């Protein structure tokens, strides 16, 4: 055999081997149970938007060839806005569909029980959305991780924001500012309200009313009347979508007046619905949430993230049959799940496969614990780092922070922190608002 033939034969054999290896690698899949509320009241309240964001990233990762030789095989499941269904679906996905891990979860009322169950079953769970501190606080869960901002941070962000502007914009010294804290009474609302109360206490505000209500309550007029009696300067409200609309409509009808209203995610994160329900009365409402990713300057983010952000927005616009929509008007919900899912697929999962031997719960956990993404390293602008085991909030991203946004003329603006501002916050409510005092 001539040397050239030997070389040719070796090259062909190597190519065949490589092809076989690639084929084998491409055959490898990571089965992921993706759970959101696709039906029920929470679906329209923001969960469907989150689910779309996560799906866009999963599809994108697969079209890019997967992760370290693994293709993603998502199995989408509907929690139906019910905690019992969420638990059943999580267990079904783990025990019957044999998924390698779970991702998603919109509602804190679902997250609290599901996280404990999944951890008990020793499966990895990556929470993109639900924010209640109760999901992780003092539970020392081993396999549950949340890159998302937690509710306590939501609560203190609004009070920090108020403390910064109370004197300057409202002409009221912080220790004279009267705030009312109202919230839906599930883990989500209660967690944020606890943060509000702690923040108000730290800033010296007077809390004139703090009260929870059932998100399905058919009437909130008594609450409005109590607020009229308490005369708060600022309302700090946490709720889902139907209850927010009902509250604001009844507040408008009953003549409730205040100087500012700050919402905290969920229903307040869907401005289109607020405007549909309230018209221009939704103007100047503030919303505390992780930022709507299209509002950030892409040059402040890690290289390439700006393109992914645009891709997410364009894919979302296509998915709702409005390909020409202004990306800056897309709800923050979409980008939240997209960014948090993207962190997992492009940072945690590759390291688990490369450095920790695969996709087992222990490998994923080890990779998650080593995560150290600096500020600007995610589409949401914040970094990602999890505390070492044994902390009070095991599994909680310590680098996450929300921003305060304001809705003005149906556009979403960043009002806080100052370094990210796209608007000088409109405070107090201008006289054009029916809620203005």
């Amino acid at each position, binding site marked *: 055999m001539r040397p050239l033939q030997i070389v040719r034969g070796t090259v062909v054999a190597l190519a065949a081997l490589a092809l076989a290896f690639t084929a084998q690698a491409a055959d490898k899949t990571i089965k992921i149970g993706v759970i959101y509320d696709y039906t029920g009241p929470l679906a329209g309240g923001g969960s469907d938007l989150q689910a779309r964001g996560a799906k866009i990233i999963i599809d994108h990762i697969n079209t890019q060839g997967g992760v370290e030789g693994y293709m993603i095989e998502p199995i989408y499941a509907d929690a139906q806005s019910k905690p019992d269904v969420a638990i059943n679906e999580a267990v079904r996905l783990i025990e019957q569909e044999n998924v390698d891990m779970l991702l998603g979860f919109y509602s804190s009322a679902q997250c609290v029980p599901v996280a404990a169950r999944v951890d008990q079953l020793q499966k990895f769970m990556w929470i993109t959305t639900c924010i209640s501190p109760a999901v992780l606080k003092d539970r020392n869960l081993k396999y549950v991780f949340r890159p998302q901002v937690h509710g306590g941070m939501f609560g203190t962000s609004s009070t920090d924001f108020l403390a910064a502007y109370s004197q300057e914009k409202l002409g009221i010294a912080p220790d004279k500012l009267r705030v009312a804290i109202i919230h839906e009474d599930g883990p989500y609302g209660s967690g944020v309200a606890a943060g509000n109360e702690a923040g108000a206490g730290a800033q010296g505000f007077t809390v004139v009313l703090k009260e929870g209500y059932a998100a399905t309550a058919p009437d909130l*007029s008594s609450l409005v009347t109590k607020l009229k009696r308490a005369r708060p300067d600022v309302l700090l409200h946490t709720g889902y979508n139907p209850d927010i609309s009902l509250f604001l409509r009844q507040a408008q009808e009953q003549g409730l007046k205040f100087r500012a209203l700050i919402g905290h995610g969920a229903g307040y994160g869907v401005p289109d619905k607020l405007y549909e329900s309230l018209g221009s009365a939704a103007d100047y409402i503030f919303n505390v949430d992780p930022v709507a990713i299209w509002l950030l300057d892409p040059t402040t983010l890690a290289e390439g993230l700006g393109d992914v952000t645009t891709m997410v927005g364009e894919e979302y616009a296509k998915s709702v049959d409005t390909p020409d929509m202004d990306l800056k008007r897309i709800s923050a919900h979409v980008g939240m799940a997209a960014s948090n899912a993207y962190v997992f697929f492009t940072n945690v999962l590759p390291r688990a496969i490369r450095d920790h031997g695969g996709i087992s719960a222990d490998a994923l956990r080890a990779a998650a614990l080593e995560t150290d993404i600096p500020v600007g390293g995610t589409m949401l602008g914040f970094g990602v780092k999890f505390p070492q085991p044994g902390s009070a909030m095991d599994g909680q991203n310590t680098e996450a922070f929300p921003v305060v946004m304001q809705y003005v003329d149906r556009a979403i603006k960043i009002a806080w922190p100052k370094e990210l501002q796209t608007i000088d916050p409109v405070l107090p409510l201008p006289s054009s608002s029916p809620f203005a005092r």
Partner: protein
Amino acid sequence: MGRLDTGRILVTLAVIMFACLAYVPTILREGDIVFALTDVYLYETMINGLLLGGVLALLSLGLNLIFGVIDVVWICYAEVVMLGMYAIFYCHTVFGLPLIPSMMIGIALTAVLGYAIHYLVIRHLVNAQPINQLLATGGLLFFFQSAATLAFGIEFRNLGVSLGSFALIQDIYVSWARLAAFATAAVCVFALYLFLTRSYMGTAIRAISQDREIMTLMGVQQGRMYLMTSAIGGGLAGLAACLLVLQYDVHPFVGLSFGPIAFMICVLGGLGNMVGGFIAAFIFSELIALGGYHFDIEWGYVFAFVFFIVMMFVRPEGLLGKRS
């Protein structure tokens, strides 16, 4: 005599309880009787309770009528209201019809739906065990919710129409939509009373509700009466939808907010007794409003449900129901 005394005692107790719930917490909190008697927000709460009662009364009216005549509880009644709300929303917002014709179409469609529910489902279960009837209408509830999710999606829809409110006196505002619900409920109870007592059809409906076997022998067409009753009940659900769509977002699960309360009001008033249901709606709503005003809003519902449970022990037949 004994029954009359019981009634008087109950009314007296109710008045005392109402006065206690209305004023005592404020007196205890403020230590000032005059302040409690002149608390403008307390009176706003009472008025809002009264107006909420109108909404609840309207919701329970059709359910009560159907149970009173056909002896079948439509667990899915609030879902018929939900479909009526969707009909009005689509007619007005998507097809661009003016609001009033949209509402009339909504009422007509729910009346047809009521007719269809009886014709397709209930007709076959009239003589079945009550548990089977409940299971069937419970199944319809899930069917309607799922069908609405498939047909209309999960988004919250809003008519974008507000009737606004007016100031009764300083700082007391009254919602036009709730006032309309209150007035409509009152008019409907009166109109239904006239229909059932003064018209031939109404007399036949009442007769058949009293003894379906005998009245059939006397020439009354039971099936026709039932279909008519179901259509009227469906139409009343449409009427409730007209007023709810002005105050609430429309989504496939909106019925969950009202269905259980409407059912409890019917039971409290005496299943099948429309006047009883009307009164029960206002008792319930005042308990919710005043309890929610003086304490955390959830306490209002606790008071209402405790009252309901106590009444089930004291008068299991309901406020104005007849002992069977």
